[in-house]
């Protein structure tokens, strides 16, 4: 008999819930603290809401780790109705506290229900992209070992690039890592940072810089071409692109055009900005995630 599988994930996916296409998904919402008040994503509290407050009120915001109680509630409700739980989470390289909390819950339930924590080593559409790949796998197989092995391989072949007009947001969240070398330029530049599946342990890496948004997009295309050459990939399996403010922004259109012009791919998805993601990117961020294999 086919196994019943629940997928748990956070709300930092870079895609909308409706884009997932799997009914057994439980979502957890990251707490967002704005000027010392806690908020969670809702119809009112969206990425656009936060970005507007950044622009108008210059508010400060930060995120907190997922709450253990929230996860336990989901697992408790699921333990008698499902055979296995896959938990697709933001990279442990980005939130060690969330990763450790999830590991504790997994160990606590090891004799009750198997929980497989998938450390995506990614953020925003990188997480969403891996989640979508998992859903594809679940539709074709219920061999847990095989799926786990495959999804682990997918994480090392997922590359996410962020063009961030203001690196200060990433810096304030303490996640800037080696990309701090791109801070403090007199010349106005758009830094491109990357979370690269094959070097994910290093956190955000400085990929390059462009003076214009098109040039920054160019940096991304060139870098992913190098990765494709390195891993002898001709066709990218899946690409997710998004803009933190509006998917009609010209830089996202330019990114889409450059991708269509220069890369072979199976699937191109236009993502959706989420509330907690805006905390770390700030306004104007353009993001692309490539799942190579």
């Amino acid at each position, binding site marked *: 008999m086919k196994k019943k599988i629940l997928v748990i994930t956070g709300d930092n996916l870079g895609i909308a819930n409706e884009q997932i296409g799997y009914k057994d998904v439980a979502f957890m919402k990251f707490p967002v603290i704005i000027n010392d008040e806690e908020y969670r994503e809702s119809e009112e509290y969206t990425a656009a809401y936060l970005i507007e407050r950044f622009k108008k009120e210059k508010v400060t915001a930060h995120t907190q780790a997922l709450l253990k109680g929230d996860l336990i509630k989901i697992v408790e409700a699921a333990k008698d109705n499902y055979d296995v739980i896959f938990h697709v989470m933001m990279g*442990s*390289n980005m939130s*060690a506290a969330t*990763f*450790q909390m999830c*590991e504790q819950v997994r160990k606590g339930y090891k004799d009750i229900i198997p929980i497989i924590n998938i450390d995506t080593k990614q953020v925003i559409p990188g997480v969403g992209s891996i989640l979508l790949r998992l859903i594809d796998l679940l539709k074709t197989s219920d061999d847990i070992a095989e799926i786990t092995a495959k999804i682990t391989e997918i994480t090392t072949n997922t590359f996410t690039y962020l063009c961030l007009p203001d690196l200060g947001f990433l810096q304030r969240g303490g996640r800037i890592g*080696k990309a701090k*070398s*791109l801070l*403090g*330029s*007199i*010349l*106005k*530049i758009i830094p491109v940072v990357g979370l690269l599946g094959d070097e994910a*342990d*290093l956190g955000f*890496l*400085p990929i*390059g*810089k*462009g*003076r*214009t948004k*098109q*040039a920054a997009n160019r940096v991304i295309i060139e870098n992913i071409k190098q990765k494709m050459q*390195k891993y002898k990939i001709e066709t990218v399996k899946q690409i997710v692109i998004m803009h933190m403010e509006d998917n009609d922004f010209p830089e996202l259109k330019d990114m889409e055009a450059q991708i269509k012009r220069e890369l072979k791919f199976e699937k191109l998805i236009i993502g959706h900005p989420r509330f907690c993601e805006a905390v770390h990117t700030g306004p104007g961020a353009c993001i692309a995630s490539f799942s190579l294999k």
Partner: protein
Amino acid sequence: MDINTIHINSILNNSCNLLSREKNYINNLNVFPVPDGDTGLNMILTVRGALNSIKPHSFKAMSIQEYVDCFAEGALLNSRGCSGSILALFCKGISDSIKLTDGTESISNDKLSAALKKGCETAYQNTINPTEGTMLTMMRVLSQKFEQLSSDSSNNTLYLIKKIIPSLEETLKNTPEMLPVLKKAGVVDSGAMGFLILVKGISFELEYNESIIKPIFSIANILIISKYVRSFVSHKKYGKRNRFIRTFITNVPLKNISNINLTNIINMLNNLLQKKDNGKLAETIIRQLADELSETWNPNIKYRYCTEFILESENLDKAEFENKLKEWGDSLIIIHSNNIFKIHIHTNKPKTLLKFCEELGKISSTKIDDMKKQHYNLISEDRAYYNKDIALLLIVNGTGFADILKGLGTVEILCYKKVKPSVNQIHNALLKTRAKNIIAAADDSDILPALKSAITLSKSNIELIESKNVVQLISIMYYYSEIQDILQNAKAIRENLDNIKFCKIARATRDFTEDNVNVKNGDFFSIYQNRMVFSDRQKGTVIERSISKLTGMENLITIYCGKKENNIDKIVSKLQSKFENITFESYFGGQDRYNYYITFE
């Protein structure tokens, strides 16, 4: 042994810190296989690289097996030089041997003994021409002694290691007897010393702040004293007349010299000075000690470049590959794990070798060290103590440009005014980077000869980028990355050097005609790709007309103002209203020669 990954990580970090503090001392002992003075640095980069490959927030959740595997893999990928490669092989052997069943969180002394044995075997088997009197011997002694002592199950592991240290110290002391080149040079083996320091760090035998070694007495000093001794003795100038040399030699601080031969020389010399005529003793000093000492520290280096890289190849036969590589040089070490080969070799044709290997698979993490330069550094009086692997040095005119370049990433700047920098100034700037590998470029082709001369004086490996203007330096900053090696950086930079379209505007100091454009004294004129574009009395007109003529698909125009051109705001706002779809930015470049640089992006 009841130990967890937090404990192991702390021990290895402390051990690595100890090694780091003694790095320069170890470098000073480096005579085999090539006296290039980098054993300490290579060992540190290997161990530090292995530790860094373990995520700081996740090792707590790792099993010991996972930790050891991760450390060994990290050592493999980050190994540097002969010493680092052998150390990585040792770690790989240990990791292959320790196979803990799921959930087991302790290592028995028997298992550890077997692991040390396997580590030692792996290191010997994978080193082409394994030589006794080196780190390999220390590994063997550690493994054998551990096996002997671990039969008593009551012995705690750390206690065992403490107990083995005297044997390792004795072995280290004997390395000159096993390897004649060490005896000639009057030193113990540097890699063996590094290994002992690592083991001592593990044993907690040392207080953290206590140094285990004597103050550093550089190789340059050793050679100078050796030279004085030889000159003094061979010319029989040991009478009262040669008071300077006599005073110099007899005041050498013997307690600071770790070189056994030199200590002997000075002791013998003191004996000689007390006797009036002792020709035989003088001959002995010259022949057996002073000459040999100098020769050993100043040898002919047969294969000049210490070359390392990672090759990923799925269907490569290791034995066949090894045979092919042997033809390219010596000191060959191949570390093989899954489809990854880490190669270390001394060769005279590193770039051709890399090209050859590119056909066999994917090459990455390339490193080429010029050992002649490193050796020259080791034996020179103004020795450079490297503290980083790679640096970028840009030579630029204009304080504004210097600040702009600094803001674009990690870079060393040599900023000059009207007078271009001298060879000596450039040489000092190269030295100041304290990097083993340097990418150097200037904003003016007239500086290239001085830069080339400075490069020949430098002891670092330097890739010269033949840039000709400051816009190319900005382009270099876009493509330089500290996380790439020198060859990858140089390749990316050269490929993109001319990516930014620009023109420059200057003011004429005489009448002339060029490219059918008439220019009068005092006129402004613009140049694009070495051709005259436009000329006029008013600079605003020249800027506007040049932009009209040269703008294509670009949507960002940047104007960099020269030293005397601060007031550009009016011109920019005029331009902005004329070219609505283009964004204009202006910055102070501070250059002497051209009034404006204008870039089109």
